[in-house]
C-alpha cells in the first residue's frame, strides 16, 4: 500500500484528505497527517466569526472522529522539522521518524511581519490562528484603541474582529488606497467612506516607521512624522509561504518564496507535492482557499493516475462582505488589458461604486470592480469568464441608462452549459440543469445535496435559485407557493380553506386538502392558522407546535426554557418587580431586561415551568407570549404624564393597545410601540406598528422592523383620533394575519405586496375591498376569546403533567450543565461531537 504523509492540517490539507478518500482509488492509500496546531483543521476564512459567538469547535472542518472513521492517522501538535529525501522519511520535533512513499506539503503560510523596530513589544499581534485570536481577545480588555497594519482583505477582516471586541479601530495602509490588489482609487474612496460611517478610522498612504512604547505598545510613528496612539496592533501586511522545510531539504524555492511546483503540483522531487499557500505556481503564490482546493483536487487526480486535470492558474475574482460592505473584484479589475475601456459610476450619497472594463472591440467584459452593491457580481463574472457577448449598451449592466434590469435578469438563461456556477465545488450550469431535468430536483436543497453547490461559501445560492426557477419553468412547472410537500397551497389559501370548511384540527385539514403525515413546516403554520381563525387555545394544539409553543416558553441553549411575564407598555409596580426578583431567586433563574421593556428569566427546567408560573400568576402576572408567533410588546416612552415634552399620554395608550392584542396569533411575531411626541423615544418607527403622538392626535406607522434587515415603518395615516387609530390597527393586523406567508414579518409582507403602501392604505384606510368591517369583527372575536394560556395550564392537572423531562421518572434531566457569569448562572457552551 502506498503510504502518503500530509504535512500540514489546514483547510487545504484537510480538503486533500477528504477528496482522496472519496476518489476511486481512495482506499488504496495509507494516509498519515501531521499538523503543528493543537486542533484539527479549522475554517480560517471565517476566523472572525469566533468573536461573534462561534466556538473553536464550530470552526472545525471535521471533528477528530472523522479522521478515525476515514482511517486517517492524525497527529496534531506535532511539527515536522526535517525531510530526508534519500531515505524518504520525515522527522518530527519530538524525534519521531516516519517513512513515506509520497509526501504532500500543505504547510500553508505565516503572517508576514515587516522588519521594523518594536514588533516584539507587548500588544503586537498577527492574525492567523485561533491561538492568535485568544491572545488578541485577552489583550483587548486592557485597552480601548487598536490598530491594524494592512488595509487588504485580511487586514479588514482583522479590523472587523477589533470592532467586534469593542475597540476604537484604526486601519493603517501603506498604499494610497484600501485593498490595493482588488480595487482602484475611486472604489477605495467609496469603501473608505462607508467604513468611516461605520466608525472605523482609515489612514491610507501611511508608512509605519516604528512601534513605540516602553515594553508595551503605546503608539505608531509614521514616516511623515505623525503619530497614532493605540494600545494594541494587529499586523496583517500579507503572507509568507511556509517553505522552510522544503528549503532545508534542497527542494527548489521561488525567489519571492513558495515551493516551486509544475502544473501537476509536483515539486522537483517526483515523490513530493506541494499544495495551497506554500506552493509557488508560475511564480505566483495564491493566498485564497479556492485555488488551494483546486490544487488538492489536481494531486488527488494524479494519485488516481488521472493525468487530464492540471492546475492552470486560478481566477482570483472575489466577492465579499467586509464589515457589512459589499466588495467585489473580477478578471482584470484595473483595465490593464491593452485597449480596454472602463465604464464607471460613483454614487457618493448611497456609497456605491461600479466599474466594468470592456474589451477594445466592445464585445466582451474583461473585468470590473463593485463596491457598496455587488448584487450584479455573479452575472458579470459569468459573462466575463464565459466570454459572453455584451449587449449593445454595456453600461446598462451596472445600472446606467434604460433597460438595465431586463438585460441583467435575462443573463442566467444565456450562460453556456459549461459556465461554472459554484467555484468552491466546481459545479457547472449543466450539472445544475441536469439535476432538474434528469433527476427531478425541485428545490435548492435537492441541488445542494446532489452536487454540493452552495455548500462552500454560499455565494452562488442566488444564481442556483434563479437557474432552478428558470429550468422548472421551461419544463412547464408552474412555480407555486406551496407550503411544503404535504400541502399544495399557500398560507393565505389554507387560511381561507380553514374558514370555509370549518376544519378544526390539523388532521382534518391534512385529510381534506393535504397528503402524507405533515412536517415541521406545515404543522406550526396550520397551528397558527387555527389559532387565528378559531382562537383555538394553544395548549390544545400542543403536538403540532414548535417546542416554544408546545411548552409555552422559549427553549434556550442547553435545553432549558426562559420565562417572560407580560409587562404591558413596560409599566410595572415596585411590588411586582420585587415579586419577579423573589421568584427568580427562588428558582435560581438568570434575569435580564429585554429590548421590549420587560424582564426575561432564563434557565428554568421544563418541570419547573408550571410551578414558576403558578407563583407569577398568583402575583398578578400573565403570559407574555414571548414564545409565540404573536403580539410581543408595545413599548412606550413616559409621555405627557411625566415628560415635559410629551403631547399625549403614550403610556396609557400603549398599555391599552398591548392588552387589546395580547395573545393574538399571527404568521410571525408582532411588535408595537407608542411615542408621546415627535422625539420618538419608544422607537415606534422600527416596529410592525408604531404610533406617534402629534398635537392633533396620532400618526400611525406600519411595516417597520429591527433585526437583520432594519427598515423604517411607513406612515399609513396622520393625525387621527384615538378611536380611528385603534380601528385602523385592528384592520391592519387582521389583514396581515389573513394574507401573509408563514414566518413573514409585516415589513417583508409589505415589501412584497403588489402596489405597496398605496394599496395597503386603500384597503385599510379607504376600505377599497369593502372588508374593513369584517376585519374589525374578526379582530373583536379574537380579543373577546383571549385567555392566559399559562393560567389554563397551571389549573389543569392533565396539562401540568406534560411538563416533565422523563415520562417514566420524576427526576429532572441530569445532563444540564451551567457555569457562572457575572454572578448569575448561564448554560455551558455548546458541546460538540468529539
Amino acid at each position: 500500500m502506498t503510504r502518503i504523509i500530509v504535512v500540514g492540517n489546514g483547510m487545504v490539507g484537510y480538503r486533500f484528505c477528504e477528496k482522496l478518500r472519496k476518489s476511486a482509488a481512495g482506499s488504496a492509500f495509507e494516509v498519515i497527517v501531521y499538523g503543528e496546531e493543537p486542533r484539527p483543521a479549522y475554517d480560517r476564512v471565517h476566523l472572525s466569526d469566533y468573536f461573534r459567538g462561534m466556538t473553536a469547535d464550530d470552526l472545525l472542518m471535521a471533528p477528530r472522529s472523522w479522521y478515525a472513521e476515514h482511517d486517517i492517522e492524525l497527529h496534531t501538535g506535532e511539527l515536522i522539522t526535517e525531510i530526508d529525501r534519500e531515505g524518504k522519511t520525515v522527522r518530527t520535533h519530538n524525534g519521531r521518524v516516519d517513512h513515506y512513499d509520497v509526501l504532500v506539503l500543505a504547510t500553508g503560510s505565516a503572517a508576514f511581519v515587516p522588519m521594523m523596530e518594536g514588533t516584539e513589544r507587548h500588544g503586537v499581534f498577527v492574525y492567523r490562528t485561533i491561538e492568535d485570536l485568544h491572545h488578541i481577545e485577552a489583550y483587548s480588555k486592557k485597552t480601548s484603541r487598536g490598530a491594524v497594519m494592512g488595509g487588504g482583505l485580511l487586514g479588514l477582516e482583522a479590523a472587523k474582529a477589533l470592532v467586534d471586541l469593542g475597540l476604537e479601530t484604526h486601519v493603517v495602509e501603506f498604499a494610497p488606497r484600501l485593498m490595493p490588489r482588488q480595487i482602484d482609487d475611486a472604489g477605495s474612496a467609496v469603501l473608505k467612506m462607508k467604513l468611516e460611517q461605520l466608525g472605523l478610522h482609515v489612514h491610507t498612504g501611511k508608512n509605519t516607521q516604528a512601534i513605540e512604547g516602553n515594553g508595551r505598545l503605546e503608539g505608531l510613528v509614521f514616516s511623515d512624522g505623525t503619530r497614532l496612539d493605540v494600545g494594541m496592533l494587529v499586523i496583517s501586511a500579507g503572507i509568507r509561504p511556509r517553505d522552510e522545510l522544503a528549503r532545508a531539504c534542497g527542494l527548489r524555492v521561488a525567489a519571492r518564496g513558495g515551493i516551486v511546483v509544475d502544473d501537476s503540483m509536483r515539486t522537483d522531487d517526483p515523490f513530493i507535492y506541494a499544495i495551497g499557500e506554500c506552493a509557488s505556481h508560475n511564480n505566483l503564490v495564491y493566498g485564497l482557499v479556492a485555488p488551494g482546493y483546486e490544487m488538492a483536487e489536481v494531486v488527488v487526480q494524479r494519485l488516481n493516475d488521472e493525468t487530464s486535470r492540471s492546475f492552470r492558474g486560478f481566477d482570483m475574482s472575489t466577492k465579499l462582505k467586509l464589515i457589512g460592505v459589499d466588495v467585489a473584484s473580477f478578471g482584470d479589475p484595473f483595465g490593464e488589458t491593452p485597449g480596454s475601456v472602463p465604464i464607471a459610476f460613483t454614487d457618493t450619497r448611497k456609497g456605491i461604486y461600479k466599474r466594468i472594463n470592456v474589451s477594445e472591440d466592445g464585445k466582451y467584459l474583461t473585468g470590473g470592480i463593485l463596491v457598496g452593491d455587488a448584487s450584479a457580481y455573479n452575472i458579470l463574472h459569468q459573462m466575463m469568464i464565459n466570454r459572453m457577448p455584451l449587449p449593445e449598451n454595456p453600461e446598462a449592466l451596472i445600472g446606467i441608462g434604460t433597460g438595465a434590469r431586463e438585460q441583467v435578469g435575462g443573463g442566467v438563461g444565456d450562460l453556456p452549459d459549461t459556465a461554472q456556477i459554484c467555484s468552491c465545488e466546481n459545479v457547472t450550469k449543466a450539472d445544475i440543469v441536469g439535476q432538474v431535468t434528469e433527476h427531478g430536483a425541485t428545490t435548492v436543497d435537492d441541488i445542494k445535496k446532489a452536487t454540493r453547490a452552495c455548500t462552500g461559501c454560499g455565494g452562488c445560492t442566488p444564481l442556483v435559485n434563479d437557474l432552478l426557477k428558470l429550468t422548472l419553468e421551461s419544463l412547464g412547472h408552474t412555480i407555486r407557493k406551496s407550503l411544503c410537500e404535504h400541502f399544495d397551497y399557500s398560507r393565505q389559501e389554507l387560511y381561507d380553506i380553514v374558514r370555509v370548511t370549518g376544519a378544526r384540527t390539523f388532521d382534518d385539514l391534512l385529510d381534506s386538502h393535504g397528503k402524507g403525515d405533515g412536517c415541521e413546516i406545515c404543522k406550526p403554520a396550520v397551528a397558527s392558522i387555527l389559532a387565528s381563525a378559531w382562537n383555538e387555545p394553544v395548549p390544545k394544539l400542543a403536538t403540532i407546535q414548535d417546542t416554544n409553543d408546545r411548552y409555552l416558553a422559549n427553549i434556550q441553549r442547553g435545553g432549558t426554557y426562559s420565562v417572560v411575564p407580560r409587562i404591558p407598555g413596560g409599566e410595572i409596580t415596585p411590588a411586582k418587580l420585587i415579586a419577579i426578583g423573589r421568584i427568580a431567586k427562588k428558582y435560581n433563574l438568570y434575569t435580564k431586561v429585554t429590548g421590549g421593556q420587560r424582564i426575561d428569566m432564563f434557565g428554568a427546567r421544563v418541570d419547573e415551568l408550571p410551578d414558576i408560573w403558578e407563583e407569577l400568576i398568583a402575583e398578578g402576572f400573565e403570559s407574555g407570549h414571548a414564545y409565540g408567533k404573536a403580539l410581543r410588546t408595545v413599548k412606550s416612552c413616559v409621555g405627557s404624564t411625566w415628560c415635559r415634552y410629551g403631547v399625549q399620554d403614550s403610556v396609557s395608550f400603549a398599555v391599552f393597545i398591548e392588552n387589546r392584542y395580547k395573545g393574538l396569533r399571527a404568521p410571525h411575531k408582532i411588535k408595537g410601540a407608542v411615542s408621546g411626541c415627535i422625539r420618538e423615544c419608544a422607537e415606534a418607527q422600527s416596529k410592525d406598528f408604531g404610533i406617534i403622538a402629534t398635537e392633533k392626535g396620532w400618526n400611525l406607522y406600519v411595516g417597520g422592523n429591527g433585526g437583520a434587515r432594519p427598515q423604517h415603518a411607513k406612515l399609513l395615516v396622520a393625525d387621527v383620533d384615538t378611536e380611528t387609530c385603534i380601528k385602523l390597527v385592528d384592520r391592519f393586523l387582521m389583514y396581515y394575519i389573513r394574507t401573509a406567508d408563514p414566518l413573514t414579518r409585516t415589513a417583508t409582507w409589505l415589501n412584497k405586496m403588489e402596489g405597496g403602501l398605496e394599496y395597503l392604505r386603500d384597503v385599510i384606510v379607504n376600505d377599497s375591498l369593502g372588508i374593513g368591517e369584517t376585519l374589525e369583527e374578526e379582530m373583536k372575536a379574537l380579543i373577546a376569546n383571549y385567555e392566559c394560556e399559562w393560567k389554563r395550564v397551571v389549573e389543569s392537572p392533565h396539562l401540568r403533567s406534560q411538563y416533565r423531562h422523563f415520562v417514566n421518572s420524576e427526576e429532572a434531566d441530569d445532563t444540564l450543565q451551567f457555569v457562572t457569569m457575572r454572578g448569575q448562572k448561564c448554560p455551558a457552551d455548546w458541546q460538540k461531537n468529539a
Partner: protein
Amino acid sequence: MKSLPSNTTGVATWFRAARVTDFPADGGACVRYGNLQIAVFNFARRNEWYACQNQCPHKMQMVLSRGLIGSQDGEPKVACPFHKRAFSLKSGQCLNADEDCLTVFPVKVEDGFVYIGVPEE
C-alpha cells in the same frame, strides 16, 4: 399496534417504558433507561411507534423528544427543535444535513404498555 423500526433480532431486553396514555398522540416523550435518554414517538396518524436517542448529534442537546414529527416522501421523521435537523425515525439517518446517524430502538405495545427493545446494559 406494533412498530417496525430497524430489525428486532439484536434486541436483548424489552424494557417496559410507560403506559400508552403517557405519550401524546402524534408527539413524543422522553424515557429514562439507566443513564440512557430515549425519545419515544406515538405516531398515531400512521398507527406506528418509534424510538431513538434523545440527544441531537448536531449540538448534543437532549431534546429530540420535544421535536415535531412528520414524514418526508413517506419516510417518518423527527425534526430537532433547536436547528431543525431532521432524522429518519426508521434508519436514524439525517435527512437534511451531514450529521451523525441516530441510534434507533424497536418499540412494541402490549396490554396498554410501551416496550422498548434495548441492548443489554
